[in-house]
């Protein structure tokens, strides 16, 4: 035995050993003794565990399985991206229903799940490793009933000072005028309406985004583009898709800023062109993609070294059938969805292509892939009774996705 009354391993060694265990083991070992229980819930330990070098980023893919005609989430066991377990071996805490709407993340191993039903918008936070799913109450801004929201952009990140998680929700509202059938015109509310949710306080704050006209459209990023307490979105001037800019939100000050993007020359014969934002090696990565009439795709990748300071990483011309880039895997590889809805990995140095045998269904957002590290961060704070919520995971998910009763 490694430790007895006479020969105890020093506390910092035990701490070091435990920080190298998977979340699943630690959830079990919380009840070994009181010291371990206290340690495993300690925020410093949680942070050490998350940043431990053997807590490798793993690939998490939302994909479509045509045999059983449903979506599923798969988590690759390690960095080799081989040996994806068949669905029935997957843990059910990774499986949430098909029509899951939007998923933003991960931030510290947590995802924001966002969906909408006839009775309104729904949001929840989800930590798959902890088997925690917490539905949030959604507080709508007060608008007359003939207003409806048009544009929906969400961001999710961490305020590094208070260590509190925040959700930023940016919407554009419009007022329907004319007859009740809705066929009439509509007038846009002149400002984007911002809602900021703070998890620690469980509260919403609404305000108008005065600096950005609604003529600019804001785009969701490919993964949670939150770095050092700021969230970044790519935006375009409506009717001039070539003019890009970046909108950033400071999580601590709750203030918006605008950042310039690098000057970009599009090809003259370009048929389709678009920008998207992702993460590269801990920095913001910007993709400028364009397809030529021959369907060949060219992607320029820029990296933001510090705010407003861009360097061009590489220009890639992967192969013919790229539909859209997803993001980076490690330093040298990129993910794409092909036009035939396959997930492929492309090494931009060796030009090696690898098909991961994961498929989309052609539906927009049906296929996505992110780099995921598991974490011990609890969505319920320090004092919640764990036992109760472990049993509630599947119930919470089920309730969240339950369709509203038809009104009589």
């Amino acid at each position, binding site marked *: *035995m*490694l*430790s007895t009354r006479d020969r105890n391993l020093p506390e910092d060694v035990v701490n070091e050993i435990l920080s190298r*265990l998977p979340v699943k*083991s630690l959830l079990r070992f919380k*009840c*070994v*003794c009181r010291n371990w229980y206290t340690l495993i819930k300690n925020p410093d330990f949680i942070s050490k565990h998350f940043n431990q070098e053997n807590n490798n980023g793993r690939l998490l893919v939302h994909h479509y399985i045509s045999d059983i005609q449903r979506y599923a989430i798969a988590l690759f066991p390690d960095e080799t991206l081989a040996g994806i377990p068949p669905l029935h071996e997957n843990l059910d805490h990774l499986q949430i229903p098909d029509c899951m709407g939007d998923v933003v993340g991960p931030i510290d191993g947590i995802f924001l799940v966002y969906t909408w039903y006839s009775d309104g918008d729904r949001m929840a936070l989800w930590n798959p490793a902890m088997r925690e799913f917490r539905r949030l109450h959604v507080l709508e801004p007060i608008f007359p009933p003939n207003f409806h929201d048009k544009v929906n952009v969400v961001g999710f990140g961490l305020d590094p000072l208070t260590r509190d998680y925040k959700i930023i929700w940016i919407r554009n509202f419009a007022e329907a005028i004319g007859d009740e059938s809705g066929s009439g015109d509509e007038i846009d509310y002149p400002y984007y309406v911002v809602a900021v949710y703070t998890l620690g306080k469980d509260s919403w704050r609404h305000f108008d985004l005065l600096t950005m006209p609604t003529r600019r459209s804001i785009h969701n990023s490919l993964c949670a583009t939150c770095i050092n307490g700021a969230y970044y979105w790519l935006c375009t001037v409506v009717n001039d898709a070539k003019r890009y800019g970046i909108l950033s939100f400071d999580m601590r000050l709750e203030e918006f800023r605008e950042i310039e993007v690098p000057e970009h020359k599009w090809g003259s014969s370009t048929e389709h062109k678009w920008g998207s934002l992702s993460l590269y090696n801990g920095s913001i990565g910007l993709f400028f993609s364009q397809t030529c009439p021959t369907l060949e795709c060219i992607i320029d990748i820029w990296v933001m070294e510090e705010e407003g300071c861009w360097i061009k990483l590489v220009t890639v011309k992967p192969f013919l059938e790229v539909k859209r880039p997803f993001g980076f895997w490690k330093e040298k590889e990129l993910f794409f969805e092909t036009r035939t809805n396959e997930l492929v990995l492309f090494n931009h140095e060796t030009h090696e292509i690898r098909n991961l045998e994961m498929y989309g269904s052609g539906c927009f957002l049906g296929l996505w892939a992110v780099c995921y590290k598991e974490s011990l961060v609890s969505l319920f704070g320090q004092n919640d009774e764990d*036992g109760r919520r*472990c049993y509630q995971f599947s119930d919470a998910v089920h309730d969240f996705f339950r369709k509203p009763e038809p009104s009589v």
Partner: protein
Amino acid sequence: MSSSLEKNMLILRSSDGEEFIVPEVVAVMSKAIKNMVEDECASNTIPVPNVDANILAMVIEFCKKHDESEAEAASDLKTFDSEFVNRGQEALYDLITAANFRDVKELLDALCQNVAEMIKGKSVHHIRIQFLGYQLFEILTSNFIWNIWCDRDFD
């Protein structure tokens, strides 16, 4: 004796009196020894109390390999590490104590990783008895309530 010693070599003396001649670059992989050398409070012979010859030899073997193989492929070193730390619990305990006390980071990392691999699939009961050396008696009495709470299945 020290005069005959080659330059950049140090002598480490284990708790049971055995002496090992090792290159300084290898010895200073222990931060504790490095500090002693830098502060010049060490003669050529450095006593390593609490570490016996058997364990000290193992620590030196590990450090030598890591010193030599800086240029070697990281995967080879990883294989060496995982084979090196694959030992019985007694030796593991002594090695961990030595690595922690002498502050040899690479060795401590490899050992902690090994112990983590050993225990990650184990049950709570197994950890208490085998890893922490609890007596059955203690589990049955002082931790009674705790145990009821713990008997829930997390899987």
